[in-house]
């Protein structure tokens, strides 16, 4: 499939909604927990098993983004969005069949494996196209799309809950809900497939600098990019930033309850749920807000803020968090906004360093940092909290060590960001690339 080139007069403001239609759909992955309890009771499976489709989905997201990135660059965004649509929707349809027939392996295969490929290809599908359309504001453009991934769970969580209430939480009700999800997401994502266009290549003799190239007119292939220290420094930056965010996300509800358990204003279960929701809002706002800010102050500077100020926020929580609830909440919100901002700004940072030639494929490879942090973050926080509990600690003391480890990780990320320099000329493409 050749990439669809925009006809004369095509507006670039049609590209963000195309990207959003895909990201708002695949962001459903983070609302999988809605199906966990109904699946456990109706199919008589354990909590570990009911989490398997989501876990496999995230693994497949990382793998398909890393290994499918070059294909996405070669075949264009419409091909990628079509693959994402087919995989993500058919994953739900297979899951519906699995729920109807009581074959849980079909749900794992459908949602986790097939749907997971849709997640990975869908995630990177609009990135390089958006950057090419918005060379003047790449941070804002990718921020809009990646904000959509956070927004997808906000939509799916209440929507799926209502559906299960209507259809019932038995296997037949779950199957119907999966079927409706598959069909509705197919229709919703089709807007992206129909709307997406790549810009017409700039004339070869166009005067002035190529705005699609990286800083200094650089273009680097994906194969060469992974051989540069810059790629691995950014990989480290992303791992550290994401791990630090997950440090709060993973334990948000028990953390706020434990911090204020022995105060005059203890936090109720519903208030803790409200805190978690507020963190989701900060995560989303950070994606669009901080990523857009990076267009004004530069990518390196914004990561200095994410990692440096993030470490300070963790320090404030560790030292004074239990003294004031508003202070605790404010610091946690800032940290989560940096977590979202880190995700959304990385494609623009890659564009600055490597140009747009294969930025989608490079971004796909970098997302293995996400998978790594997804394992590392919860592991650190949960393991330490368990050890502290065994040692008889209570309240804020349960989290002290974790918080200082998060500060250490952010400092490592900060140093890695400081070490990022322009890519050496030996990695630059020799021939001019009109992306």
């Amino acid at each position, binding site marked *: 499939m050749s990439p669809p080139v925009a006809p004369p*007069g095509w507006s670039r403001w049609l590209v963000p909604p195309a990207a959003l239609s895909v990201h708002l759909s695949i962001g459903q992955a983070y609302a999988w927990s809605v199906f966990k309890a109904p699946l456990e009771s109706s199919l008589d499976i354990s909590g570990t098993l009911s989490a398997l489709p989501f876990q496999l989905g995230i693994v497949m997201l990382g793998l398909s983004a890393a290994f499918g990135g070059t294909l996405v660059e070669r075949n264009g965004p419409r091909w990628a969005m079509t693959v994402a649509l087919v995989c993500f929707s058919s994953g739900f349809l297979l899951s519906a069949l699995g729920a109807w027939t009581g074959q849980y392996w079909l749900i794992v295969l459908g949602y986790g494996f097939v749907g997971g490929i849709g997640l990975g290809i869908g995630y990177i599908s609009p990135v390089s196209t958006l950057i090419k359309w918005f060379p003047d504001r790449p941070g804002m453009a990718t921020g809009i799309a990646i904000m959509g991934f956070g927004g997808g769970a906000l939509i799916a969580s209440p929507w799926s809950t209502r559906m299960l209430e209507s259809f019932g939480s038995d296997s037949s009700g779950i199957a119907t809900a999966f079927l409706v999800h598959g069909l509705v997401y197919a229709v919703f994502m089709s*807007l992206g497939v129909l709307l997406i266009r790549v810009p017409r290549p700039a004339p070869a003799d166009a005067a002035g600098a190529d705005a699609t190239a990286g800083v200094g007119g650089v273009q680097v292939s994906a194969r060469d990019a992974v051989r540069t220290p810059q790629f691995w420094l950014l990989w480290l930056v992303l791992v550290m930033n994401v791990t630090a965010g997950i440090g709060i996300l993973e334990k948000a509800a028990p953390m706020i309850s434990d911090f204020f358990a022995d105060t005059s204003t203890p936090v109720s279960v519903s208030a803790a749920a409200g805190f978690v929701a507020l963190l989701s*809002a900060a995560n989303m706002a950070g994606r669009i807000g901080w990523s857009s800010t990076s267009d004004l102050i530069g990518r390196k500077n914004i990561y200095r803020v994410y990692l440096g100020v993030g470490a300070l926020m963790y320090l404030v929580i560790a030292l004074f968090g239990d003294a004031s609830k508003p202070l605790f909440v404010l610091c946690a919100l800032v940290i989560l906004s940096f977590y979202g901002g880190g995700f959304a700004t990385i494609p623009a940072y890659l564009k600055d360093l490597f140009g747009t030639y294969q930025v989608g494929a490079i971004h796909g490879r970098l997302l293995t940092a996400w998978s790594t942090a997804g394992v590392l973050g919860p592991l650190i926080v949960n393991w330490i909290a368990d050890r502290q509990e065994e040692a008889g600690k209570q309240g804020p003391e349960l989290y002290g060590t974790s918080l200082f480890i998060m500060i250490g990780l952010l400092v490592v990320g900060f140093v890695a960001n400081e070490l990022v320099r322009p890519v050496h000329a030996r990695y630059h493409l020799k021939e001019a690339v009109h992306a």
Partner: protein
Amino acid sequence: MPEATTTGTGTGTAPEGAGGRRGLIAFSWLWVGVPLAYGLYELVRKATQLFTG
């Protein structure tokens, strides 16, 4: 608001909604905006529990 031409280099400008695409732009943003607004509404409802719960 100025916008890039279809070359995507951000150098040329054309009027907003050039080529009679204004309706399509509005429709496509509504297509994604309405579900997102629903999600945000549900989020705000839940988040207020922090202050009332």
